[in-house]
């Protein structure tokens, strides 16, 4: 902004400050704001020629013009004007123009001309004019005052000659004579100019006579050869003359500055080679420079030496020694000492075969105390190089006289040995480990055609030494473990040398693990353990043993002060286990790792650790290897946890997950199936939901299975079973009803009291549970399709290719009164192979044949057993809704609704509870008695109706209000017995009638029951059958015709006692006949009668 405002109109000359701003802007690459100054070049030129312009600014402008010439010299005309201006300046007397200005003008003009040629063709005349002008300047040898200007003009000419080789070849004779004549300090420039012309003559093979001065110097015309682009214009060099010139040139090196010498040598070497000069000539003249302390001169000698390696044969020792000495000169700048060692290394690489002399010198490579660390590092490189040489030579000659590399290594390392106790990030450590690396990989290069073999390196003494060194280092100074890890990592990450890292880890496994001390400091070693755990070539045995011991140690040492420590160290140890799980085959780990994990989850004092190890154990057991590794590494990918960074808690899976992974799937139920293991007998399902009819908030009291003791008992109205209303007055009836009891009733009451006191009151304690076994499975193909994975499973065998779901959580809910249903977790499940019969997968509701067949075992791995635990408040069928949440292999979270699970009345069937004081032998008798007692109590004429019974826990009470029913089943006795044996065997408490007993005996399924073969069935039954139940009466009437028959063929009677949670009962008395059976049913939960009918039909008639 400011600059733009300051920009004056083009006509006015710029001030000093403005010029400086302009220059600065150009240097910063912002030209555009000065574009308004259109004839900037004119402005520049006029400023340069003004007399009142300050000299320093003129010089600055000249340099500026030079640096940015490309943006000014847009036309050939500009160059012409520039040269004209130069002419004016050069010819001006000295008192008018300062010589520095003159010099700079010449330099800038030449430079601009050369650079402009890149963009556009230069008029040859302009070029000739400039050369001519410069030639006139230099053509005054030994003139006193302008000697420096002449030198600069020589440089300009040299630059032009470099630009167009051969440009001055025509006037070379004049140049030589000038060279011979000039005696001031500018003679170096003359010599260099002449050398450069000679050099170009030889390079371009120009056949000119360098003695010929017949062509006048001025006016100058560029020779033809410049125009030809080809090099071989003239084939025959004038060798004799050139040799004379070379001999002349070689007389004067001592006149030159070191920089001039470098230029000179670089030009003279090709000349000398072309003219086949004896290299010894150069050597005599120039080799002495190696004793100079100027690094440039030393390098010049090296350049020459490398060019004429044969001629200098035998001089290697001297050169290397000198280089070594430069590195030891504490006067020198550090960088030159470093360079000297690099030269020595590079030089020895070149003459690898001849390096023997340096090996003897290698004790001189030992770093000195006050050498800077950079120098020490490079000197250690030299030692490493020597050890490589020694090794190679030893292999070649087979002699043992050479220096021991291990000794070199150890002695060299002394200079940075403090790294063992200094902080691990100190520079000494860096130098030391760098040296380890150099020594270790030795001569094993990274190129593919490297001849050195693995064996060589592994057998090398250095490797053994280093391995011991590292082991001891880690044992002594645990701070260094991360450094060692970094070192191993460096090797591991290298394609060529990863095996070296592996070998080191193997050695650590073998040598470090047995030696570590079992204490809290062990955790320092964990980074290296982690690397060992990662490595598949190392058997995990040792490490697992160590970790087990460590866990034991942690458990044993645990105390009030070590809480955090136990936690952090335990979790880090588990982190290593995790690493192992990720990198090894589970089979390899299984035994020891499971032992470690189970120990941890049993005994570890910290809960989190226990949990985590349980999870790992579960994973180890449930998830097959590859899936396991995938899932573990997935965690790293998503959450960015590297396996080694368990500093706080490795188990940070709780951190926020990317939301895009949450996805609900609507049609989930079409591919994931939760199926009942045992099918329900009743296919059609219906549920009597009386509660819906109830308007009031509270449940009808009679449906309320248990009441509180305080709310005392209420009467049950047996006869009016359909009445759902509660009579409020009765509830508040405070006093116990008066009762008259006979001994029989008392006995019944006693039995019932005792019995009910065993039934848990679900309101205060875990109620009785009903378990429904299911299995979960899912179809691979549908699943993949759903996830968008385009992966078709082709073969059954490819388990790894099958999809899997992880950490599946099934949540259940139901509208039926089943209480809260605990969710169920499945750690891992494989998808079913695709070629399963699709028909069988869609029959989740139908009855699955009990014997699934031969492939059931095979299928087990594709199914997960799920147990739904219901805690019914009421024994009623219902549907359990299933919600699934699971993870796919790619970390995607899948959630959705599955097909509900049907719960039938039969699921509610439980065996009656046996009080604990009843011994096993007495159980059948007890059950039998209980049946009779309940049968009595549920009878219509029961005298227990008003009685209440305390439940377990003493808070709740229950009353019995019985109902009865009958059902005639037209089934033959044999099939009835079979069906009973199959489905109701558990609940049969008594069998009477000889033929039936025999049949049961034969079946051998119904056992431990009371067999009443003595008493006649009919009487025993009819005795009880005295109730006013009409239905029964009608039934009897209806069956009148058949009675005589059936009686005759009455085989016996089953007594079945079924407990319905939470506290109800279902009692069957089945009078088995040959062709039909009469089932008398009593229950204290009348709604269940509704389902029983269907059930019995399904059981016996289908």
């Amino acid at each position: 902004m400011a600059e733009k405002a300051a920009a004056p109109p083009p006509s006015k000359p710029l001030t000093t400050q403005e010029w400086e701003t302009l220059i600065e802007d150009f240097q910063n690459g912002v030209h555009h704001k000065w574009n308004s100054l259109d004839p900037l070049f004119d402005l520049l030129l006029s400023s340069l020629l003004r007399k009142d312009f300050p000299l320093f600014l003129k010089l600055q402008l000249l340099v500026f013009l030079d640096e940015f010439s490309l943006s000014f010299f847009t036309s050939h005309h500009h160059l012409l004007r520039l040269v004209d201006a130069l002419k004016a300046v050069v010819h001006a007397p000295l008192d008018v123009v300062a010589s520095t200005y003159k010099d700079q003008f010449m330099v800038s003009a030449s430079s601009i001309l050369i650079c402009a040629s890149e963009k556009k063709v230069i008029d040859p005349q302009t070029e000739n004019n400039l050369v001519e002008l410069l030639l006139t300047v230099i053509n005054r040898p030994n003139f006193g005052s302008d000697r420096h200007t002449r030198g600069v003009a020589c440089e300009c000419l040299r630059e032009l000659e470099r630009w167009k080789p051969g440009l001055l070849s025509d006037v070379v004779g004049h140049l030589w004579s000038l060279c011979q004549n000039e005696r001031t300090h500018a003679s170096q420039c003359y010599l260099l100019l002449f050398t450069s012309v000679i050099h170009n003559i030889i390079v371009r093979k120009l056949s000119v006579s360098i003695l010929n001065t017949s062509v006048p110097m001025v006016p100058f015309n560029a020779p033809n050869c410049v125009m030809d682009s080809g090099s071989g214009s003239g084939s025959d060099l004038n060798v004799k003359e050139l040799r004379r010139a070379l001999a002349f040139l070689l007389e004067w090196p001592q006149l030159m500055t070191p920089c001039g010498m470098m230029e000179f040598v670089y030009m003279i070497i090709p000349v000398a080679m072309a003219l086949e000069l004896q290299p010894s000539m150069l050597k005599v003249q120039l080799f002495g420079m190696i004793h100079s302390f100027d690094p440039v001169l030393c390098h010049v000698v090296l350049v020459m030496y490398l060019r004429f390696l044969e001629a200098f044969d035998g001089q290697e020792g001297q050169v290397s020694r000198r280089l070594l000495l430069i590195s030891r000169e504490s006067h020198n700048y550090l960088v030159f000492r470093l360079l000297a060692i690099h030269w020595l290394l590079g030089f020895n690489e070149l003459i690898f075969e001849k390096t023997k002399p340096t090996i003897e010198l290698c004790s001189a490579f030992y770093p000195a105390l006050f050498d800077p660390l950079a120098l020490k590092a490079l000197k250690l490189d030299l030692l490493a190089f020597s050890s490589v040489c020694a090794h190679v030579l030893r292999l070649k000659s087979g002699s043992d006289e050479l220096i021991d590399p291990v000794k070199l290594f150890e002695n060299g390392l002394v200079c940075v040995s403090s790294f063992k106790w200094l902080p691990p990030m100190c520079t000494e450590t860096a130098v030391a480990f760098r040296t380890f690396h150099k020594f270790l990989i030795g001569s094993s290069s990274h190129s593919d055609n490297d001849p050195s073999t693995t064996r060589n390196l592994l057998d090398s003494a250095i490797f053994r030494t280093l391995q011991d060194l590292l082991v001891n280092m880690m044992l002594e100074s645990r701070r260094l473990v991360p450094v060692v890890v970094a070192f191993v990592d460096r090797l591991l990450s290298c394609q060529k040398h990863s095996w070296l890292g592996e070998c080191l880890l193997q050695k650590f496994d073998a040598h470090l693990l047995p030696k570590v001390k079992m204490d809290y400091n062990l955790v320092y070693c964990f980074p290296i353990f982690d690397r060992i755990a990662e490595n598949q070539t190392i058997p995990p045995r040792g490490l697992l043993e160590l970790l087990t011991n460590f866990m034991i140690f942690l458990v044993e040492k645990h105390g009030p002060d070590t809480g955090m420590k136990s936690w952090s160290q335990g979790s880090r140890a588990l982190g290593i286990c995790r690493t192992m799980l990720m990198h090894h085959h589970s089979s390899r780990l299984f035994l020891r790792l499971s032992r470690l994990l189970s120990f941890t989850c049993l005994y570890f004092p910290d809960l989190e650790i226990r949990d985590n190890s349980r999870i790992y154990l579960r994973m180890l057991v449930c998830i097959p290897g590859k899936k396991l590794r995938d899932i573990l590494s997935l965690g790293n990918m998503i959450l960015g946890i590297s396996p080694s960074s368990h500093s706080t808690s490795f188990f940070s899976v709780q951190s926020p997950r990317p939301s895009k992974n949450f996805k609900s799937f609507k049609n989930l139920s079409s591919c994931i199936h939760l199926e009942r293991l045992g099918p329900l007998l009743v296919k059609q399902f219906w549920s009597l939901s009386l509660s819906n009819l109830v308007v009031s908030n509270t449940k009808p009291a009679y449906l309320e299975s248990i009441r509180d003791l305080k709310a005392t008992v209420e009467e049950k109205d047996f006869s009016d079973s359909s009445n759902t209303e509660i009579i409020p007055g009765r509830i508040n009836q405070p006093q116990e009803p008066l009762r008259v009891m006979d001994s029989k009733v008392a006995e019944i009451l006693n039995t019932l009291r005792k019995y009910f006191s065993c039934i848990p009151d679900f309101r205060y304690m875990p109620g009785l549970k009903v378990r429904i076994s299911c299995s979960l499975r899912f179809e691979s193909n549908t699943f993949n399709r759903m996830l968008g994975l385009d992966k078709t499973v082709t073969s059954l065998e490819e388990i790894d290719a099958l999809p899997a779901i992880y950490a599946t959580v099934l949540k259940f809910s139901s509208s039926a009164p089943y209480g809260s249903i605990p969710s169920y977790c499945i750690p891992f499940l494989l998808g079913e192979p695709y070629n399963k019969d699709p028909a069988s997968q869609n029959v989740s509701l139908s009855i699955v044949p009990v014997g699934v067949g031969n492939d059931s075992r095979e299928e087990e791995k594709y199914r997960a057993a799920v147990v739904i635990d219901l805690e019914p408040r009421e024994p009623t069928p219902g549907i359990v809704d299933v919600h699934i949440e699971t993870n796919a292999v790619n970390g995607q979270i899948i959630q959705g609704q599955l097909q509900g699970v049907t719960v039938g009345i039969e699921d509610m069937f439980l065996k009656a509870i046996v009080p604990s004081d009843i011994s096993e032998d007495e159980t059948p008798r007890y059950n039998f008695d209980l049946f009779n007692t309940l049968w009595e109590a549920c009878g219509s004429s029961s005298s227990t109706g008003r009685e209440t019974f305390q439940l377990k826990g003493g808070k709740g009470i229950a009353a019995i209000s019985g109902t009865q029913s009958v059902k005639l089943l037209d089934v033959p006795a044999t099939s009835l017995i079979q069906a009973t044996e199959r489905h109701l065997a558990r609940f049969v408490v008594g069998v009477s009638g000889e033929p039936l007993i025999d049949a049961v005996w034969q079946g051998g399924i119904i056992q431990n029951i009371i067999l009443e073969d003595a008493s006649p069935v009919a009487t025993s039954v009819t005795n009880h059958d005295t109730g006013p139940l009409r239905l029964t009466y009608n039934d009897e009437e209806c069956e009148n015709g058949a009675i005589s028959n059936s009686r005759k063929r009455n085989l016996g009677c089953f007594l079945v006692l079924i407990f319905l949670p939470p506290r109800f009962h279902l009692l069957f008395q089945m009078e088995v006949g040959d062709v039909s059976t009469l089932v008398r049913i009593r229950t204290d939960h009348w709604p269940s009668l509704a389902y029983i009918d269907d059930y019995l039909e399904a059981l016996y008639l289908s």
Partner: protein
Amino acid sequence: MSSGCSIRAIWILNNLDAVVFSRKFPVVEKRWRAACNADNDIDQLFASLPTHSDLADAFLDRKHREGSARGFGIRKSNSTLGSDSWVDDPITRHIVGLFINKEEEDIKNLLWPLILHTKGLYSILVLPLVEPRHLVAYARLCKRSDCGTALGMDDGLSSLLLDLPSVTGAFMVAHAIGDIITGDTVEPEVIVSAAPSVGGLFDSLTGSIGISSRAKPVNPPVASSSPSSTAVPGSVTADAPKIGSRPLDKDALRTFISSSMPFGTPLDLNYSNIFTIKANGFSATDLPPPDQKQPAWKPYLYKGKQRIMFTIHETIHAALYDRDEIPDTISVSGQINCRAELEGLPDVSFPLAGLNAANLEVLSYHPCAQVSDQGLDKQGVMFSPPLGNFVLMRYQATCALGPPINGFYQLSMVSEDKGAFLFKLHLMEGYKSPLNMEFCTVTMPFPRRRILSLDGTPSVGTVSTSEHSVEWKIVTSGRGLTGRSIEVTFPGTVKFAPWQNQRLSSSSRSSFGINADEDSDNEAENASNMVNEEHLMEKMNKDLPPVDLEEPFCWQAYNYAKVSFKVVGASVSGIAVDPKSVSIYPAVKAPIEFSTQVTSGDYILWNTLGKCPHVATIKRSNREDNADEFFNLISADEDLFIIHPSIRSLSTSLGTEKNKAVKKNENTFYTFHPLISSISPPIKGSNKIDQNTSLFISLTT
């Protein structure tokens, strides 16, 4: 490529990483472009030079990536592929690569080799011209994904640098520019007995020509031309710029660059010549010598009263351990400064004597010198002196006279904040007149502890304390110690302020790559009320910052005392120039003056009771092996005798097993004569007789 060294561009950045000066050489740049175009495979190389802002950005970017302007130098765990430290070579702290436009770190954007020289507040970047293939080779080096170069097998940096004299030249340029920026254009000191010292080239001109000129360059208090080792030991970083640098003299820079390398190719980097030419110019009366060519490095000829002055300046580096298992090391680095006020272009020659006695190791000369007849004990030096003061020769030697200060320093921490110390020193033991110790000061630095009080009186001298050091002036200037030796002791206790953990900022710690696992669990275990020196050391060392690669070791980790002194009268190495044997051709009568000055460099007394850094020496325990090694060493070198600094301790064992040794090498005859033992007897109370009894070996074939 025909050019040895050409510079594409020079940039100077200030401490705010802004470019304050730049110079580009379009002619060289054109050659670079031509070279790139010539090679079709690599035409994608970075073809144009960056603007100031781009360069500054790239420089800053590298600084962030590499932790400092110079960089790590060694591959660390946080080195990134493609960066300089990935190459894993300390020299990448000096030869750096910049990625211009960092978005795409591609070879296309790589600017290499940039010579980085830090001087004062400024960073000087010099970009020499290399061949495109060199750049490609380096890019390959820093992009290779493997674990690092194998020595001698892979194409490493070494062979690249050997092939690149332009890098060497660019370093010379960078250093010359650095000197100009900071005004360190002082010529080497030449001491004259009468006047304090003689000025530089300019004086010799003004003295004769009579032109008044610009102000004399300011002499630093201790003139020393040796660039290294002037830094105080323990100074934290070399990267840290010195405070108080003067503003950039851009005019001087422009003049220097334009004159020394008009087209980017350096011709002469001698700034005193350049500035003299600029200031004085030449007149028609300045005639060149009639029958000789005037060297380029001597633009003017001297006129006036003729004389030659030599000053031998030696610096003693010593590490005194006073331990049986670690031998002391003493080395002398010396130089002969010269000023020859002679008319015309004469040659001066003199024989250098006493080479063997001095165990002279390194001899390197000024480019003007020619070395003839390199004998074992004698060396003739002939040189054609330039104008003004110059360093004629440099050498490394051992201390023939024995250490000027010998003894021990013990410091023991009696509690965490209190240390008891004891000095027992011998000064000038065996030093005869005219050797004169002008001053001698012992400093105990405690850079990481604050001194509360000091208790104790030395037998000689005065003591003063500053916050972080104790200074004991034994000999003060004005009361020099001539021709006699003294023994001094200084027992005392020093009390420190309680130790506070100086936590490093997390950034600097992590920048170093390896994050040490600092489990706080373990703190409790170490805590014990007992005074445990090991423990204290450990505690203190825990947060020691890493030193730069330019330091020899982590100074702050050790307890030591540093001795500084100055001895005049004779050289301690035994090297001498005999004024009588100096000859001038063509012969003129010119008085020859000769002086010496010995100063201390790193002269360290390591705490005998603490840790100390040391280097490998050939141990005395397995004598025979080492003796063999030693003889291998000698027999390999026929003409030059390479002696390891540690050989003094070996020589004892050689002496005792002389016969054996001679038998093994029958072609060579060795003589041994004890020399030092009479000069430096062991200190009483310390059992060091074996160790200090050193022998010198003279070798005759």
